[in-house]
């Protein structure tokens, strides 16, 4: 089991600067006519890209300064489908925050090669249960709206990662930093009623994962895309 790792501060600061710049874009384009909703829920699914976890040799100490390699292991997470639910609060037509949980079940693959006694290379695997709980700042870019109902946005945030090895006996924890953007398309919008709007949303994000199951001590990037249905209240 690993402790939550620290050290993502630099990445967070970088995204913070990015958000400030985006907010500062002057509103020169057409502003869509959409209700100002206070709350939003969102559910959907997507695809989490694979990522290399790192390589490590099974080294033996040798009389020579260089170790003797018994075999090599190169590991990666394979791409996997995801499911997510989110809830958000809008502070204004432009700015909001949201938090959610994303579930996935990626395969951890280890390619074993270069055996000192010529064992044939083999790829071995296990399934991981992966949960991330994260919070993001959302900035709607009304200036770039497509028509009256389709609005792009950018988002960035951070979260907690929990990974369970096969058999659910070992938990590993880490941090997730993410940034990206997407488009929201309102299928329905109204000024009256409990539900003020509904629509579709697509997201593309870059995740930087720190800690968790890791065979090298550095954050690893995952790309992700998702689509979802949202309701506003």
């Amino acid at each position: 089991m690993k402790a939550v790792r620290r050290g993502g501060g630099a990445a967070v600061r970088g995204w913070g600067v990015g958000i400030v710049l985006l907010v500062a874009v002057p509103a020169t384009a057409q502003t869509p006519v959409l209700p100002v909703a206070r709350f939003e829920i969102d559910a959907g699914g997507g695809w989490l890209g694979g990522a290399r976890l790192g390589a490590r040799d099974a080294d033996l100490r040798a009389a020579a300064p260089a170790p003797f390699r018994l075999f090599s292991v190169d590991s990666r997470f394979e791409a996997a489908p995801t499911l997510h639910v989110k809830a958000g609060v809008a502070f204004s037509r432009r700015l909001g925050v949201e938090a959610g949980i994303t579930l996935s079940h990626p395969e951890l693959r280890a390619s074993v090669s270069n055996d000192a006694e010529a064992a044939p290379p083999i790829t071995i695997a296990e399934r991981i249960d992966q949960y991330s709980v994260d919070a993001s700042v959302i900035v709607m870019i009304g200036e770039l709206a497509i028509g009256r109902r389709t609005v792009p946005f950018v988002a960035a945030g951070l979260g907690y990662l929990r990974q369970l090895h096969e058999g659910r006996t070992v938990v590993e924890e880490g941090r997730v930093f993410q940034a990206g953007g997407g488009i929201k398309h309102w299928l329905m919008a109204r000024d009256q009623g409990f539900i003020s709007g509904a629509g579709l949303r697509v997201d593309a994000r870059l995740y930087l994962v720190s800690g968790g199951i890791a065979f090298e001590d550095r954050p690893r990037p995952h790309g992700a895309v998702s689509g979802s249905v949202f309701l506003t209240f």
Partner: protein
Amino acid sequence: MRTAPWRAPWKALRTALLACLAVAVLSQDAHAYLHFTTTVRGEARVLKWQRAPVRWFAGDRAAAGVSASDFQAAMARAFATWEAVPGASVAFQFGGVTGAQPFDEDGISVLGFQDHPEMERVLGATGFLIDTLTGEIVESDIFFNSAFLWSTAAQGDATRFDLESVAVHEIGHFIGLGHSAIGETEMRPEGGRRVLGSAAVMFPIALGRGITRDRELQPDDIAGVSDLYPEPGFRAGTGVAGGRVTRNGSGIVGAHVVAFNPATGALIAGFTLNNDGEFQIAGLAPGAYVIRVEPLDDADVDSFFSRPAAIDVGFLVTFHNRLFVAPAGGAGERVTVAVRPK
């Protein structure tokens, strides 16, 4: 026993080490690495000290380049290395300098030099006096062969064997550990084996003159002593890999099973120890492991087992086809590795 790296392990030590070798029998239920066991009424008993601290005495003989006080200091450092293992509860106490000799059955545990030029391939050896009913070690002696040149220099001496390194190995035996097989060797044209690499102080063949790396315990050594003398919490914080190694569906005896943690680089190993081909490797940090099974072909089989004829070395190196996950405080899913004959 630790042998010099440049010659075949010497086999005629059996008389001098009768106690040591007689107890290195196959066990039905021993955990990883190799713990010395004895059989009492058909039941395996692990050999260990049952009272702490264990008192040891330094022999008063010097050797070329190593004074009696240098010797005593090197032994104290080697004992301290084992005492410092965080997961293990083992303690030693220096009893003083004695004129008694190793392998005297005198009730005191003596470490000292002895000159045995006829033992031309033995750097040092450990013997025991045990209570055969309980498996308790009541006396253990270590001799270092002063027919070799020894060094206690902090950085080693390229022309001499490092006394502290060999002492750490022999003290591993002193507390009940057998040999580890995590190492690769090659045969030398003039005979004997050259160590290409090892990942355990308890590997039976020394790395060579001037090498001081065996002053530092490796994960396999640490798991071995922690399993034998566990601190409270050791078992709750570590996991066990267990399973079988089979060939054509039947268990094989003496297969060397290595667990590799890609997150830490740790290598910890055990053996299949019964006719069902069952093994257990305790002391694994929780996480994912690559399991590799190999024949016991990098040192003489009788370095590990007292019944070498029972050991099967006629199969190819094989990896388990899944990552093994070691949980904290228990055993992971049982592993079965089917190997192919050579």
